[in-house]
């Protein structure tokens, strides 16, 4: 016994010595990392484990001073590795002092001396003061991780997982089989191959598929690469790569600033001081969010679906801040103000040049002015960029809804999302939520057939809905494609004729596309038709209106038996739309290009009157006309400039000698020809809402600044179409009633 004990004690000293030497080496690495801003998490964990072992050993062999020091140091390192304490120069200093004192303590222990070491006591006190706060909440719940895998993560591994997710890395499950005989080498090779691309969080023996000589491992890895890239990187290691799917998330909220960047030094130890027990409690809470919902639900007695406790956005991490969109609007207004300064500057510069005072001065000013313009433009662009958010925000929500609806409808649906990272203006993302949700619902309820129906026609029992997003020039395209039954165009036509939307002869000559577009007509797809129209058409008129309001266009394609595809094309920013500028009675109006189909020259002789309305025939179909000058009562009474009295100022009567134009606008299958005096051209314009006091004024979607303080009203084509589809007499009466 004595022999064994002595031997163990000897081992203790040699191991402790080895550990302390290792500490010194690791600290040098840490110091380097701290200076370069890239702290190796593995190194911190190694340090923690080393001190942890020292503490255990010291406890066993009665080395009390070493035990106490190790205990405090372990606490600090634990906080560091779990992200509660930031590695600052002060903390590093503490660590170096500890390593140095370990050496001396060890000497004393070896020699059996028990002398006072006040410097150790001081260090212990300092270490004791710096206890870390709570770690940032975890987005682990966002991933479809096997609960079995999560259950075996140590606290540290869980923290690393969390940190890696927070840094936006992708999670992969690697499956690999190792020969037990060569596992060490094989493992080292795999680690070396993986290290440049990310971090291996944990290794879990699967216990399956292995004989006595080999072992199968599930490896959880966080990685910067895509699945395909990682597969290539690990090609020599015999690894099967599988991306861990992200779980749809209900809501998105902010996550705190990550510890390793934003933490500020407080207290003597230069660490964030917080109640350790609170930190632990929050940790405990957090575990619930690590478990997949079904597990949480079970624990909660199945009390309804539970949203993961933390719903931090995977994107809103690291170096991001959250900004109130109104603040950005205000910034945009300041840019507007600068634009005014700019135009004053231009005038000044012109005057200077005209006055021939100083050629040099005037060219200097001109140069300055150009620089100012450039910066102003990039500032405006920058602010618009800040407003951009990934479509993934709304896609995540959709994925959750799809799961819910398909469960309710008892249909197996596989939602395949691509392009979730595509960015659009925040306001658009918000406004898209409802229309997209609606289309998803339609796709599942009316698009995807029942399982038996699918099997009967030889389709896979599981339906597929593809949700794709991508950028195309200044626009973002969103496609929703299902492999369901498609729209029954015959029935759609029947319904259209029955409802008087389409004349019987029109029905015969309609193109397939025109027929499909019937779903966008209000009243075509009322609730009673839900079962009748086995496509998706329910409420599509509303969807179309919503998309139009965003300056977008929606298109529909469908093949009976094969599926339906809805394509939405949206401007990237809500604030900026492409518009056709037109002139009516000397005033400039903007028409969103999304609504403009074409523009033709008005042949006065071609105008006919049908039912008290002027029309022309456009390629065989009747196009109702709207003379904007008359509608807006501009002809002959035009008022331009700041002249409230009106009479005689500015424009008198519109010039009638020149030709006029018809701008054909369309919403769904309805068309209207807007008669204007001049086509000015296309332009990207920043659209602004009219004030609340003009809410009741119909026909305008907003206004836009045309430069030089001039403002152009943006026409609301869907509203004009809506208004003018009532008879012109009614419209006139309504207008008279308003003005009277």
């Amino acid at each position, binding site marked *: *016994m004595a*022999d*064994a*004990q002595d*031997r*163990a004690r000897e*081992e*203790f000293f*040699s*191991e*402790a010595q080895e550990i302390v030497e290792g500490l010194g080496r690791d600290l040098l690495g840490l110091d380097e990392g701290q200076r370069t801003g890239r702290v190796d998490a593995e190194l911190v964990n190694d340090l923690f*484990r080393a001190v*942890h*072992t020292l*503490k*255990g*050993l*010291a*406890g*066993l*062999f009665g080395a009390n001073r070493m*035990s106490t020091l190790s205990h405090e140091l*372990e*606490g600090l390192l*634990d906080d560091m590795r779990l992200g509660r304490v930031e590695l600052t120069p002060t903390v590093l200093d503490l660590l170096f002092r500890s390593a140095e004192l370990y050496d001396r303590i060890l000497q004393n222990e070896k020699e059996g001396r028990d002398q006072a070491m006040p410097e150790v006591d001081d260090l212990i006190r300092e270490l004791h003061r710096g206890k870390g706060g709570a770690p940032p909440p975890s987005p682990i719940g966002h991933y479809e991780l096997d609960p*079995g895998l999560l*259950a*075996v*993560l*140590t*606290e*540290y*591994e869980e923290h690393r997982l969390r940190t890696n997710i927070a840094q936006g890395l992708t999670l992969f499950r690697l499956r690999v089989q190792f020969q*037990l005989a060569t*596992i*060490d080498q094989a*493992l080292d090779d795999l680690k070396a191959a993986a290290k440049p691309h990310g971090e291996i969080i*944990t*290794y*879990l*023996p699967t*216990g399956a598929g292995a004989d*006595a000589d080999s*072992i199968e491992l599930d490896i959880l890895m966080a990685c910067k690469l895509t699945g395909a890239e990682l597969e290539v990187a690990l090609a020599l290691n015999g690894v099967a790569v599988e991306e861990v799917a992200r779980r749809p998330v209900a809501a998105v909220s902010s996550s705190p600033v990550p510890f390793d960047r934003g933490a500020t030094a407080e207290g003597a130890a230069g660490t964030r001081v917080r109640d350790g027990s609170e930190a*632990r409690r929050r*940790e*405990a809470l957090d*575990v619930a969010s690590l478990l997949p919902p079904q597990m949480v639900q079970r624990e909660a007695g199945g009390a309804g679906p539970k949203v993961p406790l933390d719903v931090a956005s995977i994107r809103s991490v690291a170096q991001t801040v959250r900004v109130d969109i109104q603040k950005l609007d205000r910034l945009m207004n300041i840019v507007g103000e600068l634009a005014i300064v700019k135009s004053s500057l231009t005038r000044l510069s012109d005057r200077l040049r005209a006055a021939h005072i100083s050629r040099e001065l005037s060219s200097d000013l001109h140069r300055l002015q150009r620089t100012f313009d450039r910066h102003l433009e990039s500032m405006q662009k920058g602010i618009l960029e800040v407003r951009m958010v990934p479509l993934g925000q709304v896609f995540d929500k959709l994925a959750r809804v799809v799961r819910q609806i398909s469960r309710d409808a008892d249909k197996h649906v596989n939602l395949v999302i691509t392009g979730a990272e595509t960015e659009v203006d925040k306001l658009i993302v918000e406004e898209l939520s409802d229309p997209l949700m609606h289309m998803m619902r339609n796709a599942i309820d009316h698009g995807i057939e029942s399982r038996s129906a699918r099997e009967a026609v030889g389709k896979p029992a599981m339906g597929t809905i593809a949700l794709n997003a991508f950028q195309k020039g200044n626009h973002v395209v969103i496609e929703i494609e299902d492999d369901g039954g498609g729209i029954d165009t015959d029935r759609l036509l029947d319904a259209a004729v029955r409802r008087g939307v389409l004349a019987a002869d029109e029905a015969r000559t309609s193109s397939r596309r025109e027929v499909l577009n019937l779903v966008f007509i209000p009243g075509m797809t009322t609730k009673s038709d839900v079962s009748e129209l086995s496509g998706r058409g329910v409420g599509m008129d509303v969807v179309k209106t919503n998309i139009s309001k965003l300056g977008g266009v929606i298109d529909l394609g469908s093949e009976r038996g094969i599926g339906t595809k809805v394509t939405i094309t949206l401007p990237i920013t809500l604030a900026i739309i492409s518009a056709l500028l037109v002139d009516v009675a000397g005033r400039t109006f903007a028409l969103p290009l999304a609504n403009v189909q074409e523009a033709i020259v008005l042949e006065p002789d071609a105008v006919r009157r049908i039912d008290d309305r002027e029309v022309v025939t456009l390629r065989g179909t009747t196009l109702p006309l709207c003379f904007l000058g008359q509608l807006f009562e501009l002809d002959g009474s035009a008022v331009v400039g700041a002249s409230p009295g009106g009479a005689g100022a500015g424009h008198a009567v519109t010039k009638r000698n020149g030709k006029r134009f018809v701008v054909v606008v369309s919403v769904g299958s309805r068309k209207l020809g807007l008669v204007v005096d001049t086509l000015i051209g296309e332009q990207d314009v920043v659209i602004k809402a009219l004030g609340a006091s003009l809410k009741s004024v119909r026909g305008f979607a907003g206004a836009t600044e045309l430069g030089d303080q001039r403002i152009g009203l943006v026409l609301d084509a869907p509203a004009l179409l809506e208004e003018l589809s009532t008879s012109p007499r009614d419209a006139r009466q309504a207008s008279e009633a308003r003005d009277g």
Partner: protein
Amino acid sequence: MVRILVVEDSSAMRSYIRAALEEAPPDSSDAPLPSELEIVEAASGFDALRLLPRGSYGLVITDINMPDINGLELIKFVRDSEHLRSVPVLIVSTQSGERDRERGLALGADRFLAKPFTPEALRDAVSKSLASPRGAARSGGDG
């Protein structure tokens, strides 16, 4: 003869455990340990995975915080394996790792012993683990 696997990445800790178990004073009034013990050391989780299928173990003593395969994964592996399911598991880890201890017990470990421990405490824990239903069945089965 009862074979015990000690999974620990600290060699000093392994030695300590071996000493505490192998050289129990014969006159001690401690909980009785089997007269014949064979202590097998594994320096890592992988070592343990290599060793476990090749021998019949009456008890696994494991640390939690180890590189690569951690103690929790080892416990899960043992509990999921048909061959090893009935082997009792004793966790030796620090007092501060409550969360990991809880997880270990939830995964099917039988007992937890906080580091640092005295040889007496270890012997007591080992003897109780071996006497537990799982351990008893195991010892009985192995003769």
